[in-house]
């Protein structure tokens, strides 16, 4: 698990899989998850294998999660917001899911 180098001056509260987390305001969802869990944050659509945030710059799409009910959001491109609800992305989204 990643450790933060600095204490945050301001924090917000988000939910990950129903668990409340206090995380530094202004950081990305991917950073918050890396500091929270070692476990996979999504499973791949075809092979079903586990993935976690990787490139942290919007390219690899390995950090996909569900945010506030919307599937396939890039966690590394999304800044945490107070009250945000984050869930693991299991496999593919459906075509009818919210965008």
């Amino acid at each position: 698990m990643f450790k933060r180098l600095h204490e945050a001056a301001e924090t917000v509260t988000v939910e990950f899989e129903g668990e409340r987390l206090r995380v530094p305001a202004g950081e990305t969802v991917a950073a918050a998850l890396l500091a929270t869990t070692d476990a996979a944050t999504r499973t791949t659509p075809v092979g079903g294998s586990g993935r976690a945030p990787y490139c942290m710059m919007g390219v690899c799409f390995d950090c996909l999660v569900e945010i506030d009910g919307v599937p396939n959001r890039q966690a590394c491109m999304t800044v945490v917001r107070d009250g945000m609800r984050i869930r693991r992305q299991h496999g593919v989204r459906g075509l009818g899911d919210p965008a």
Partner: protein
Amino acid sequence: MATALHLKSFDVAVIGGGMVGPAIALGLVRRGLRVGILDEGDDVLRVARGNFGLVWFQGKGSGMPAYVSWTRRSADLWPDFAAELKQNTGVDVGHSRPGGLELLLGEYEFAHRQHYLGQIFQQGGGAPYEVEMIDRKEVEALLPGVGLGPDVVGGSFSPIDGHANPLYLLRAMHAEFQRLGGVYLPNHRVASIAARGDGYALATGNGAVYADKVVLAAGHGVRELGPAVGLDVPIRPQRGHILVTERTAPILPLPMSAFRQTAEGTVMLGVSAEEAGYDDRVQTGTLHDIAARARRVIPALANLRIVRSWAALRVLTPDKCPVYAESETHPGVFAIASHSGVTLAAVNARLTTDWIMDGVEPPEFAAFGLGRFNVQATA
């Protein structure tokens, strides 16, 4: 002793490392010949990195029955070609042949398509043409649960159509070529081709290369290289755009001419044609038009985010049909050009070798020469 000269002497030098060159080279190297592929660097147009990935039959060959036949032969060879690549290289090029659809918006498009395909059937003089016009209900039966937009009146369907992953295809062909002893030479841009003894000497950016026979399969590069060896191939660039969505559950069981869903779940959206010279920059307006049509055809696609887009330049002849030609002034030098590098990969790998090595022409090739473009020039 093996010298650099020896290493760069081949029975056949194939100029071009995209979709056409490696397919041709595969057939040659399989026959036990010494074959080199001369390629440029990563800083050139690289059309073969921009393909949509259709292995497509319907609608091709208007005005040229030979191209209909050649395309059908390739589509028929594809399953075996893909299986062999997978077995020999471990690369699954993702080929499937579930049939293909072109979906049509409004009665005008339907009538236009019907007329166009009818002409292709008629020019065949009674030969079977496995494409049929189907109505909206029949389209819905082929795409259960997809949900068509209200303007979709029907489409054209062919059981011959299929698709594959063009990047895996490129990788697999290169891997198989090298596995069979073929020599791949990147950064060997060919500056000139000169007769030398019974063969040819090619001046490249990386020293001279010698070959008994030379195949020009360099896409747009053929335009520049050909005239000096009697092969004036009038190809032009035509820009096409592709959009790629995020991955989604499998929803499209078969490819359409404008959309296909990959094995990994992304939906690719395409079909645009622009005359823009060698400018392969993405135009936002064109992306918008493609996306707007996609949502008219299948409204739920609007829910998907676009994650990538690009433009690439088709290698287009004036009649959109391929060129397979041997030079009259430089025997043993051939030009092959087509915008259907993916579709024709199987037939290029299997049925062009005897033509290049023994002069045995497939029956279709009488129509694929350069004479058809040069009526005025030769008068």
